[in-house]
């Protein structure tokens, strides 16, 4: 079977961008209207969440909402 790339000498398409500093990473991406999320993690190992009071956070300027496990969202695999 003839392979297109296996066993062939080729330059991966992103190498030139990497050696010139032009390569963009996920962290570099900005889009109009983009929002940012932060993960709030548990301060204790193996704890149980009984209640979430997000009222203070929601009252802060710039906070557009919170997401919890109870929220409808994209299918998580």
């Amino acid at each position, binding site marked *: 079977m003839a392979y297109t790339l296996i066993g062939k000498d080729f*330059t*991966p398409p992103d190498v*030139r*961008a*990497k*050696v*010139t*500093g032009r390569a963009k990473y996920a962290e570099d991406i900005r889009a109009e209207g983009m929002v940012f999320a932060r993960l709030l993690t548990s301060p204790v190992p193996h704890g149980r969440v009984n209640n979430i009071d997000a009222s203070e956070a929601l009252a802060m300027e710039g906070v557009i909402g919170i997401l919890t496990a109870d929220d409808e969202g994209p299918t998580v695999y």
Partner: protein
Amino acid sequence: MLTHTVRGQAIRTIEGLEGPNGEFHAVQQAMIDELGPQCGFCTPGQVMSAVGLLESNPSPPREEVRQALAGNLCRWGAYDHYLNSVMRAASA
């Protein structure tokens, strides 16, 4: 090295390395030919460290290159690939 220690100095970064017509520096070309980078995140720093070294010593032994690149950390451990690239650039 702290930024303020180079106040008033000319500072060259990866963006200023290519020639006026986009010609790659020997180190850049060697890294392409040797496939130095993996994810590429540390690559600009590796390149500039190598450029600094080769400008002060055009034909360094491998161990000297290793020391010169010692400050450039690579999460993926591509260190030998970068080392080979710089040795290739030095012999070009």
